C-alpha cells in the first residue's frame, strides 16, 4: 500500500511525506553531535527496559513461589539500579534530541524569513498576511510540539517494543505469538484511522488559516468595520468559518477516540488470551507462573506504546500538514530564479553610474489571463534628464515604475538600462541606480532617524535629507525629535508628515535615478508648496521619473508622456504639449479652473 502510494505520488506535483521530510532533515543534520549523543544513550535505555521484566520473572519464580527469600534484597537492588540507568539514559536521549528539534526550528524560521523577503510581489498579492504569519508561527509551533516530540517518542517506543518482542520470544514463543497475532488488526485500524484523520486535519488547517486571515483583516480594518456598521456582517462570516473548522475538528475527535479506545480494549483482551494460552502451558509445565505474570505486566509496555504510537501518529499527521505548508513556501519561486542574469564580470562597472534607460516596444500584463496594462510603450531617458508620466489612474503609469524596480517581471519587448537588458540585471544592482519613493508610506516601529536612514547612513546625512525636503522642522517639534519612536505605523503623524519622512528616506538612499510615484498627493497645500520647492531642486539636480497629479511639478521635465489605457498618446515637453492642444493641454486647463 505504501509503495504504490509513493509511486502515484511521484506523478503529482506534491512530494511524498518522506521527500518533504528529507528536505527538512538538512536543518537537523547541522546538530549531528547532539543526535549522536542522544542516540548512543538508547542501548542503555533498551537494556534497562528488558532487564526489568527479566528480574521480575526471577523474583516471582525463584523467591515468591518458593518462599526462599535470601536472594530477595540483592534482586531488589538490581532492579533499583536498572531504574536509575533507565532514568539517566532516557533523559539524555530526550533532551539532546529536543535540543536538535528546537534549534532546527529556530533555523527554519530564520531561513523562511530570508526567503520571504526575497519572494516576488506576486506572492504577496495572492497570499494574505495571515497565511504567511501562520506559516512562521503556528505551523512551526506544531512542528515543535507535534513532530519533534512525536518522532522522539516513536523512535524510542519502536526500538523498545521490538526489543521486548524479541525478548519475549526468547522466553516463550507461544505466549509471544499470542501478542504478535494482535499486531496486524491494530496496525490496520491505525492505518485506516490515520488516513481519515489526515484528510480531516488538512481541512482543519486550511479552514483555520482562512478564518485567521479573515480575522486579521477585520481587526486591522476594525475602523472600517465600525464606520460601516458592518459588525454583524463580518461576525456572521467569521462564524461560518469558525463553524467549518469546528465541524471538521469534531469529526476528527470521533476517529481519534475510536482509535484510542479500540487499542486500549485490545490490551485487556490480550490479557485474557495470554491467561488462556498460559493455562495450557502451565498445565504441561512448559512455562512457569512467573512468566505468565510477567507477560501480563509487559503487555502495558507493548500495547501502551502502540496506543501512544497512534496518538503520536496523529500528532505527526498534524505536523505533516504543517510541513506541507512550509514546503509550499519553500517551493515558492524566488525572485530572479531560473533567470539568465548577468554575472558580476559581465556587468563590470557598467552599472556604477546611471547613463540611460530605453523602453522599446514594452508590453505587460500582470497575469497571462489579464488584458495588457502596457501596450508597445517606447521612450528613453538619459542621465540628468527628467521624464514625467501623466494619465488617469489605471493608465499604466505605476506599472512603468513597477517594471523598472523589477517589482513585477515578465515584460514583453525590451528595457535597456545603460544598454543592458533589465530582465537580466540582478535586482541588487539596481538599488544603487534607482531610488523609489513609495506611494504607500510604510513606517517601521523605530525612531524617526531609522525611518529616514534605514540604518544605512549616518545622522548627519539623515538631518541633511530631512532639511532638503523641509521635514526637519516638524521632526524637531516631535517629543523626542529624531529619536521619537513611531508606534503602530506612525499613528502620531499626519498623512503629509508620513510622506515627508518617506521623501526624506528616498533622499538618503542615494540612487542616481529618482522614481517618484504620486509623491505629493495627500499633503495640504501649504506643506505641499514646501515640497514643491524640494521637488524643483530634485528636478534640477537629479535624473527623475515622476508620476504626479500636480502638473506644476512636472512642468520643467524634459519629456512628458501622456498615457491612456497603457499606450502613450502624447509626448513632448510642456511647451510642445501645450502647443498640440491635446489631452495634456486639456488637463492643464482643467487644473487651472
Amino acid at each position: 500500500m505504501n509503495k504504490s502510494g509513493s509511486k502515484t505520488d511521484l506523478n503529482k506535483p506534491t512530494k511524498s511525506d518522506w521527500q518533504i521530510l528529507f528536505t527538512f532533515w538538512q536543518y537537523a543534520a547541522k546538530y549531528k553531535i547532539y543526535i549522536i549523543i542522544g542516540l548512543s544513550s538508547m542501548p542503555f535505555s533498551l537494556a534497562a527496559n528488558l532487564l526489568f521484566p527479566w528480574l521480575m520473572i526471577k523474583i516471582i519464580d525463584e523467591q515468591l513461589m518458593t518462599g526462599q527469600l535470601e536472594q530477595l534484597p540483592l534482586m531488589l537492588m538490581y532492579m533499583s539500579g536498572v531504574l536509575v540507568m533507565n532514568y539517566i539514559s532516557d533523559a539524555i536521549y530526550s533532551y539532546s534530541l529536543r535540543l536538535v528539534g528546537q534549534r532546527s526550528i529556530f533555523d527554519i524560521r530564520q531561513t523562511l524569513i530570508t526567503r520571504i523577503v526575497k519572494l516576488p510581489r506576486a506572492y504577496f498579492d495572492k497570499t494574505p498576511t495571515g497565511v504567511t504569519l501562520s506559516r512562521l508561527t503556528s505551523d512551526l509551533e506544531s512542528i515543535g510540539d507535534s513532530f519533534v516530540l512525536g518522532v522522539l517518542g516513536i523512535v524510542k517506543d519502536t526500538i523498545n517494543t521490538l526489543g521486548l518482542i524479541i525478548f519475549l520470544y526468547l522466553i516463550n514463543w507461544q505466549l509471544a505469538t499470542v501478542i504478535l497475532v494482535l499486531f496486524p488488526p491494530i496496525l490496520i485500524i491505525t492505518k485506516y484511522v490515520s488516513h481519515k484523520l489526515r484528510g480531516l486535519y488538512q481541512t482543519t488547517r486550511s479552514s483555520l488559516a482562512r478564518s485567521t486571515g479573515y480575522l486579521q483583516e477585520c481587526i486591522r480594518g476594525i475602523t472600517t468595520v465600525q464606520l460601516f456598521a458592518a459588525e454583524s456582517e463580518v461576525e456572521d462570516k467569521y462564524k461560518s468559518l469558525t463553524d467549518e473548522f469546528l465541524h471538521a475538528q469534531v469529526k476528527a475527535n470521533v476517529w481519534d477516540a475510536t482509535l484510542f479506545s479500540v487499542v486500549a480494549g485490545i490490551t485487556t483482551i490480550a490479557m485474557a488470551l495470554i491467561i488462556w494460552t498460559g493455562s495450557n502451558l502451565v498445565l504441561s509445565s512448559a512455562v512457569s507462573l512467573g512468566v505468565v505474570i510477567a507477560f501480563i505486566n509487559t503487555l502495558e509496555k507493548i500495547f501502551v506504546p502502540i496506543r501512544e504510537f497512534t496518538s503520536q501518529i496523529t500528532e505527526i499527521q498534524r505536523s505533516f500538514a504543517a510541513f506541507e505548508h512550509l514546503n509550499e513556501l519553500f517551493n515558492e519561486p524566488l525572485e530572479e530564479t531560473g533567470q539568465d542574469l548577468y554575472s558580476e564580470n559581465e556587468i563590470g562597472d557598467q552599472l556604477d553610474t546611471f547613463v540611460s534607460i530605453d523602453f522599446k516596444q514594452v508590453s505587460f500584463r500582470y497575469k497571462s489571463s489579464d488584458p495588457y496594462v502596457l501596450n508597445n510603450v517606447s521612450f528613453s531617458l538619459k542621465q540628468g534628464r527628467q521624464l514625467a508620466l501623466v494619465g488617469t489612474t489605471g493608465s499604466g503609469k505605476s506599472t512603468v515604475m513597477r517594471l523598472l524596480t523589477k517589482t513585477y517581471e515578465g515584460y514583453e519587448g525590451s528595457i535597456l538600462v545603460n544598454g543592458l537588458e533589465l530582465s537580466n540585471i540582478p535586482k541588487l544592482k539596481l538599488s544603487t541606480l534607482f531610488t523609489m519613493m513609495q506611494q504607500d508610506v510604510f513606517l517601521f516601529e523605530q525612531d524617526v532617524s531609522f525611518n529616514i536612514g534605514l540604518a544605512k547612513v549616518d545622522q548627519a546625512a539623515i538631518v541633511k535629507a530631512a532639511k532638503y525636503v523641509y521635514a526637519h522642522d516638524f521632526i524637531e517639534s516631535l517629543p523626542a525629535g529624531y529619536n521619537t519612536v513611531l508606534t503602530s505605523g506612525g499613528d502620531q503623524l499626519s498623512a503629509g508628515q508620513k510622506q515627508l519622512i518617506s521623501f526624506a528616506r528616498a533622499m538618503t538612499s542615494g540612487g542616481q535615478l529618482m522614481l517618484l510615484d504620486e509623491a505629493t498627493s495627500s499633503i495640504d497645500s501649504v506643506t505641499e508648496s514646501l515640497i514643491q520647492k524640494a521637488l524643483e531642486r530634485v528636478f534640477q539636480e537629479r535624473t527623475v521619473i515622476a508620476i504626479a497629479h500636480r502638473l506644476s511639478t512636472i512642468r520643467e521635465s524634459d519629456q512628458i508622456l501622456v498615457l491612456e489605457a497603457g499606450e502613450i498618446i502624447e509626448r513632448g515637453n510642456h511647451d510642445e504639449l501645450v502647443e498640440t492642444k491635446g489631452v495634456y493641454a486639456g488637463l492643464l486647463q482643467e487644473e487651472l479652473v
Partner: protein
Amino acid sequence: MLVDTPQSKGQLIWHYLWQNRLSYSLAILFIFLVNLLQVEIPLMVKTTIDLLSGDISQNHDALLNGIFMIIGASMVMIVIRILSRMFGLNPGRFVEAQLKNDLFAKLNRLTDGFHSKNNSGKLISIINNDITGIRLFFGIGFMSMFNIIFALSLTPIYMWRISPSLTLYCLLPIASAFIIYRFGFVQLRAMWTARMNSLQNLSEQLVHFLSGMDVIKAEFMDDWVQQEIAQSNQKLLDVTLKIQRIQVFILPILNYANEVMKILILGLGAVLVSKSELTVGEITAFLSYSVMLAMPFMSLGRILSVLQMGMASLKSVMTILNAKVDPTNLLRLSAEETQSIKRSTLSVKNLTYRYDNNETNELTEPTLKNISFELPQGKKLGILGSIGSGKTTLVNCLNHLLDLEAGCIFYGAQDITQYSRHDWHKQVRTITQEPYLFSATLTENVEFGSKNNELNPNTAGQHLSVAQAIEAAQLTNDIKRFSNQADTIVGEKGIMLSGGQKQRVSIARALYTPADILILDNVLSAVDYETERAIMGELNNKLVDRSLIVVSHRISALQDMDEILVLKEGEIIARGKHQQLLKDSAYYKQTWQLQQSEQQNELQNDQEANS
C-alpha cells in the same frame, strides 16, 4: 452575552462549563464507568491467576468463565471509552469556537480608545494562540481531571480491600515523587507565560514586517530584518529550552515512581506470600493497580500544565473580554426608531476635543477648539485645512469614532453620544483617507456593510446596483481591464489596486449603501482632477437629498459647497461660500492661489532660491 458584563475568571470558566453541561454530564458518567471497569478487570485477572496456581484441570470451567468475563468487559469498555472521549473532548472545541466568536464580537464593539492602545498583531495572537490553551483546558484538561479524580478514588479502595499495608507502602513513592514534580511544575508555570509572551512579540513583529514588505524589499533590508527576527526568535528558543529541561529532567520522576512501586510490591509481596497473607493472583492484581495508580499521577503531570496554560491564556483573553464597553454602545434602535431620526439636522455646539496624553497625564492643547456649525439635511459642507489643523479629528468626532463628551454634537434634538456607535454609523457614513479593502472580489468590497443593514433607498425610492455604484465612482473603465471584471479578487488591503482605485472603490461602497450623512475625508487625494470632478458630480446627482461633508485640502473639491469651514490649529478661522471666502479670508485666498496659479508658485520658489 459575554459582551456586556465584565466577569471574573471563575465566572468565565463557569459560563462555558454551564454552556456545555450536557456534554460534560455525559462525559462524567462515561468516564466513571470506564474507571469502574478498569478496576474490576484486575480482579477478574486475579481470580484466573489464582485458579492457574491451583489445580487447573479441576477449575477448567471457572477459568474459561473468567476469561470470557475479561473479554466481555473489554468489549463494553471500548464502546464506553469512545463515548467518554467524544463527550469529554468536544466541549474544548465548542468553547474554542464560541470564544472566538465572542472575542471577535467584543472587539467589534470596543472603540478606538481600545484599539489604538492594543495593536492588531497582539489581538490576533491572543485569539489564535491563547485560545489553544483554553481549548485544551476545557477539553482534555477537564476530561483528564475527572479521569484522575475517579482513578485516584477507585483504585486505592480496591487496593485497600486486598492489602491495606501494601497499599500504604505503595503510596510512599508516589507521594515523594509528586513533591519533586510540584517543584518543577511551579517553575514551569512561570515559563509558559513567558513563552506565550515571546511568541506574541514575535507574531507582532512578523505582522509589522510583512505589512512593510514593499519597503523592506525595495531597500534591501534583508539583513536588518533577519537580525531583528533573530533576537525575538532567540528569546523564544531560550525559554522553550528551559521548559524542555524541566519536562525532561524533573517531570518524568513521577513515571519512575510506578516502577519503584512494582519493586516494593514484589519485595513486600514475597514476604507476605511466604506468610500466606497474600496470593500470587493478588500480587498480579496489585501490579496492575500500581500502574493504575501511577497513570493518573502521570497524566496529572501533563494536565496540571494544561490547566495552568489554560489559566494563563484565560488571563490574556480576559484583557479583551473585560475591556470596558460603553453601555450605550450596546443599545440598538428598533427599525421604527431608526426611521424616526432620519433626515434630522446635524448640529455641533462648542465642540472642544483634546487627546489623552497617557505618558505625562498633563492636559494637552486641545486639537479642536469651540467648533460650532449646523448641517441641515440635504446640505453640503466643506472643510478646508492644512496638516494638524484638526480636520481628521473633527471627522472622527462627527462619526463618534473618538470618545466624546456629551453635549457637543446633536442629531435633531438628540445628543449623538446617546446612540450606540453602530446606530450612529448607520446614519453617518465616513469614507476615510486611507480606504480599507478586504481580500474579496470587487463586488463584495462594494457590498461591504450592506448586509443586515436595510438598504437605504434615496427619495426616489430606489438604490443603486453594484454596477451603478461602480459607474458613479468612475471605476467602470478600470474594471474592464481586470481579469474577472467586478469578480476580480482585489487582494489584501486592496493591494492589486492603485491608491486612486482604492479610493474610488470606497466611494462606490458609500454609494451602494448610502447613509443620510456622508463624510469624505480627503478621499480624492490620489485621484486626478478630471475624475474628481466627475465623482463630485455623481455624488451631487445620486445623493440629492443627503447631507455631504467633504474634507479636503483642495479647494477645487469644495468650491460648490453650501458652506465651507476653514480650519486652522483646531479653530474655525473663516466660514462661508467660496466667493465670500475669497474676499474674507486671507488664508483661504492664499491657498486658492497656491493651488491656482503656477506662476505665483514659481515666483515664490525663485525668491527663496535667490535669498
